[in-house]
């Protein structure tokens, strides 16, 4: 095990995968000379040359489409989208071409490519550089979506994504690039589709991912110490396909569900998880399903307002307390 940050962990994954498979290459803006705006590609061009670590024009549409063309013809591109916000510029390529091409061809072709897209809040980057858009892509058949919360998962999931024969959207929270953690030595993979139970608990299940995992764990510690409430925290890691098994089994145990993400609450992935549960195992619930997510506004520039619209540790703590007060038991007894 070695300690490293998320940017370094993904860099290791890139290096290992590029060493192992000559067809893996990277396409994006400011990745070769700069090493990526978050340092996540630092030195990669020195190792593999500017032919394999390609600085592109500011042409996200063509970057994404060219990535697809390369994937169809035998390469395994990793496409860096700079900020997930800019997928808006390449949405047709992402959702109408990449996601659909295998199906439309009747299974003749495959599109083994990874789209890396830094998302989330960082340093008051404001409305056009701060979004979390996973819900759009989970709603798009043909994509797989993963997002790590720590360096080990970052490495293992990126390696899995690169080896996957289907297009994978790899979302990496900008505020996590510098987050440190222990990473196992040697080759390892985090399989796509497997969530992780990162904290055991019996009272409430919190389902979360990416940056909100650490906040949920923090809240869980507080609730344990202050209230004796034991939270089970599940880090989804893969957003499509969801690991239904782990989700349902935890709910069957706790009877209480909260979903926490940084993305906007309305229409966010939390809705899907909540609805899945309300459809498939509602009878195990002992109270309402609570979702915490960004308020329904674009991200404001001012740090004060930015903070206000984003769920924080306190919101989780208070949400859980309220949830338990509103549980059916209490409703019935009061």
């Amino acid at each position, binding site marked *: 095990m070695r300690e490293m940050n998320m940017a370094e962990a993904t860099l290791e994954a890139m290096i290992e995968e590029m060493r192992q498979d000559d067809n893996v*290459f990277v396409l994006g803006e400011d990745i070769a000379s700069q090493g990526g705006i978050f340092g996540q590609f630092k030195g990669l061009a020195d190792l593999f040359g500017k*032919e*394999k670590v390609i600085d*592109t*024009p500011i*042409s996200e*549409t*063509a*970057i*994404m*489409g*060219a*990535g*697809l*063309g*390369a*994937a*169809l*013809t*035998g*390469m395994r*591109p990793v496409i860096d989208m700079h900020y997930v916000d800019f997928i808006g510029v390449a949405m*047709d*390529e992402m959702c*109408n*071409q990449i996601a659909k*091409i*295998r*199906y*439309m*061809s*009747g*299974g*003749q*072709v*495959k599109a*083994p490519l990874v789209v890396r897209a830094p998302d989330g809040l960082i340093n008051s980057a404001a409305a056009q550089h701060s979004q979390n858009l996973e819900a759009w892509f989970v709603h798009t*058949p*043909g994509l*797989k979506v993963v997002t790590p919360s720590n360096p080990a998962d970052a490495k293992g999931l990126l390696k899995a994504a690169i080896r*996957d*024969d*289907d297009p994978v959207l790899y979302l990496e929270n900008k505020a996590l690039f510098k987050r440190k953690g222990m990473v196992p030595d040697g080759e390892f993979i985090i399989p*796509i*589709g497997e969530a992780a139970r990162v904290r055991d608990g019996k009272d409430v299940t919190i389902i979360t991912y990416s940056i909100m995992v650490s906040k949920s764990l923090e809240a869980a510690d507080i609730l344990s110490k202050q209230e004796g409430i034991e939270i089970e925290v599940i880090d989804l890691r893969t957003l499509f*396909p969801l690991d*239904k098994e782990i989700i349902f089994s935890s709910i069957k145990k706790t009877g209480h569900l909260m979903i926490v993400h940084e993305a906007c609450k309305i229409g966010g992935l939390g809705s899907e998880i909540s609805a899945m549960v309300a459809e498939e195992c509602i009878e195990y619930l002992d109270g309402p399903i609570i979702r915490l997510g960004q308020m329904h506004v674009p991200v404001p520039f001012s740090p004060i307002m930015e903070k206000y619209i984003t769920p924080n540790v306190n919101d989780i703590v208070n949400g859980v307390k309220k949830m338990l007060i509103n549980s059916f038991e209490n409703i019935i007894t009061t």
Partner: protein
Amino acid sequence: MDQHLKRNLLKTMVRIRLFEEKVEELFLSGVLPGFVHLYIGEEAIASGVCSALKKSDYITSTHRGHGHVLAKGARMDRMMAELYGKKTGYCKGKGGSMHIFDFNLGVLGANGVVGGGFPIAVGAGLSAKLKRTDEVCVCFFGDGSSNRGTFHESLNMAAAWNLPVIYVCENNRYAATTPTHTTTSVNNIADRATGYGIPGVIVDGNNVEEVYSAAKNAIERARNGEGPTLIECKTYRIKGHFVGDPERYRSKDEVKEMKALDPIERYIKGLFDENVCTIEEVEEIYQGIRNEVIIAIKFAEGSPNPEPEDALTDLYVMEEGIYYA
């Protein structure tokens, strides 16, 4: 130009024409689902260009894609079956007219999104460069689609990276119902080549040999690492934008006038003049292809429909753990 090639150019054009005439008939009689855009009148372009390609070369096609795919060598029976929505179709009935693929022939897909093929072609060119093969990719596109941003981004990228991609514009004067000159700020799409520092070539798109030569030159340049070329083929769409188009946007006279420039009739006449073939030989070509069409229809009609549940395959390569509802 050798006579074998000349006869093959004719054959390819006739193959497209007879296939599509039948498709039109079938569609109008209500047998085919979906909608269909015919290539009739533009056959010289796909035929000329694809005859200059190798099997391992790539093409990207458009919503008006039957001609491109047939010219690249696709089987008529599997195409027909696809238009019928049958399980034996190229896409197992999942694609339909606008989405025909034949990956073994380097067909990277027709595309329902106008201009969707531009960057895919860049990627195929990039693969060739990275893998150091001598493959090239031809991107067919319409005049109307040259106003899409993907045109610009892709031509710039292909040019900046010197990729083996040939952009072939089929300027048939209309984007659906809209005359191109009303929405396009240049007279020739080829004029746009200047903006990318690449050659822009204009040819008579109804003259198959002219198209062939221009394509051959551009393909050679591309294979030699000299980068992309933009070829504009001036042509005309004889049929409506789609089968069933009321065609309110143009006059019957205009269509009649342009019909006189039919690439196939013209070419046959030329071949007669040059003594490349006789009436009988031409008739033989037609007869052979008529048979192919009949066999294709039989194949399609005799093929099984997909099972409803087949809808749930072919999305992911690695389906493990995937759920569909």
